[in-house]
């Protein structure tokens, strides 16, 4: 990397499409819960937040101090090159079998985000956030989405967050109320790495190692892309956009080629899929750039992947702050192989247009 990084980052404004806060603990949410659930939390000793602590190994978790609101504002949002950042608060609500509790916790989380993170003070005005929903109850989720969309201008919710690992693929009709509300409100669906479900993350059961589960998450992203296309979601909701968050993106060309080939053989089975799957992918999907799965010492491969994806509008900058991937130059390497115009699109324009910032 011969680019003068310090100067570069000062001058180049960017939208960071994936930053995180620590999930609020039960005590922080209690004030936002209906009385019934406040009592439940009290007498049941319900501690939801602690379950999430097992999701990431410590080396990936980042410093918890860096996920508190004051620190994020001071350490991150105050940077001159950050124009906006999209806050994705992962709650793991899909793990709950009690759907009323999941719905109430989603609602409480959004209120907490609105009060603690999105209030328009200091650097807070740079923040946007994803609406947290309980996928167990798509009808209630649609109500929740519309509720926050009505206060979009005031608060800055811009997207609906879904964990990519689901029990039922996201193309299925049971989720359509969510897409109906999201499309009506101009919210993309953000599919994020992770998800706590009772079903295995591979078609051959549970991996023993976190590294397998981590790597395998990109296969789940691929299954979801395929499901959304095969079920005709984008014919039914032509304005709907889907953002792949922390998905990796170098698998996209092989997936597009495979789906296009298979579609030619199978389109009689799914006649509502009227266009090549790659056309839907390029029109309806966006992918965030962190992490970059590419060889660090062979920039030609990365350049080819960008060419094969073939659309400068598909990738959007993200840092995955505050998660710590160690000395990882991937995003800088990616930026270095882009043309100046592509670079501006990836850093800024694509996200600005998508989220109407």
């Amino acid at each position, binding site marked *: 990397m011969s680019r003068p990084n310090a100067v570069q980052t000062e001058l180049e404004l960017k939208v960071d499409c994936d930053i995180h806060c620590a999930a609020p603990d039960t005590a922080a949410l209690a004030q936002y819960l209906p009385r019934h659930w406040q009592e439940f939390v009290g007498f049941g000793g319900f501690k939801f937040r602690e379950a999430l602590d097992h999701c990431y190994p410590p080396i990936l978790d980042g410093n918890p101090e860096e996920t508190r609101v004051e620190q994020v504002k001071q350490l991150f949002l105050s940077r001159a090159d950050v124009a906006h950042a999209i806050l994705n608060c992962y709650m793991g609500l899909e793990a709950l079998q009690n759907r009323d509790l999941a719905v109430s916790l989603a609602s409480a989380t959004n209120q907490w985000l609105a009060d603690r993170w999105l209030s328009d003070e200091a650097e807070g005005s740079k923040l946007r956030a994803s609406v947290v929903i309980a996928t167990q109850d798509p009808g209630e989720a649609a109500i929740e989405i519309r509720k926050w969309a009505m206060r979009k201008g005031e608060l800055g919710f811009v997207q609906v967050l879904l964990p990519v690992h689901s029990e039922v693929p996201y193309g299925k009709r049971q989720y359509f109320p969510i897409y109906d509300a999201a499309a009506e409100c101009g919210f993309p669906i953000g599919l994020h790495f992770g998800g706590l479900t009772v079903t295995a993350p591979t078609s051959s059961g549970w991996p023993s190692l976190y*590294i397998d589960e981590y790597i395998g998450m990109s296969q789940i992203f691929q299954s979801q892309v395929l499901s959304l296309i095969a079920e005709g979601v984008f014919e039914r909701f032509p304005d709907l956009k889907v953002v792949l968050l922390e998905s990796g993106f170098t698998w996209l060309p092989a997936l597009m*080629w495979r789906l296009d080939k298979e579609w030619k053989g199978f389109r009689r089975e799914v006649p509502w899929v009227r266009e090549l799957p790659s056309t839907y992918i390029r029109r309806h999907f966006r992918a965030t750039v962190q992490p970059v799965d*590419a060889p660090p010492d062979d920039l030609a491969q990365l350049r080819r992947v960008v060419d094969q994806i073939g659309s400068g509008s598909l990738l959007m900058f993200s840092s995955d702050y505050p998660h710590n991937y160690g000395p990882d130059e991937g995003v800088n390497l990616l930026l270095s192989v882009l043309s100046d115009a592509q670079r501006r699109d990836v850093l800024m324009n694509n996200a600005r247009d998508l989220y109407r910032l």
Partner: protein
Amino acid sequence: MPSSGLPAGSDLDFLREQLLDRWNVRIAILNSGNVAQLSVQPGDYGAALTRAINDWTLAEWLDAEPRLVSAIVVPINDADQAEDEIRRLAHHPRFVQVLVTLRNVDLLGNRRFWRVYKAAAEAGLPIGVHVGGIAGQPLTGAGWPSYYFEVHAGHPQAFAAQLSSLVFSGVFDEIPRLQFVLIEGGFAWVPSLCWRMDRAWRILGEEVPDLKQEPSWYVRHHFSFTTQPIEEPERPEQFREILDALDMNGRLLFSTDYPHWDFDAPDRALPSDIASGLRRQIMSSDAVSLYRFAGLDGA
């Protein structure tokens, strides 16, 4: 369909006429694709079924046609009996690999399968992993899909999970001669998976401290991929880009998937501009060296 009225792939004369003679096929490997579903049948019945399939294959196909060789079907989830079956047949030169299914109740890196792999490696037989299988759990990591389109287009994701499981299990350090052939899953997805595995290993490698090499090293030294359904990128030159990114010269094996509907014809499967040396490797010499066909009739 054969004029005998038998189902596709069940009439040896018709197979000779339609495949072996027509395309001048010197050696064809039989993988009992549909029958392999039975290999997940638990207990003695499953073991008896797989023995019967292998004996039937030998008597009805291999003894009758010298150009055919076959995989040994094993009840992989019953490691004792699978190992026995490999040892029972391994001496027979016409059995050239061990067949397991892509989808299984456990990922293939699981240590309970290693004794099966050891038996195969000692006999010099690669493990062929073929599309199919009954796993008892959803067909994708995102749950059950609705359409066959999704099932068929989704094979690469299932293969990727098995490949990753095998690599990080450490089985290739334990059994250095072990070889896997991934059948009917394509190969364009392999480079980005290798890149992801290598990157993940750089940050999470302390979870697998005994792994001796970079993950992609194991892929390049222990896996081969059959060609059908052949990759068809958007622009012709991208086929070469796939091979370049794959960086696995010698590990692509031509296959037709006869008699299935998505059969790849030997004269049209590979892009026409592929170099003749590479074409010869993919069409024959790589398989000859992997399966050690040199001593067989027809090779």
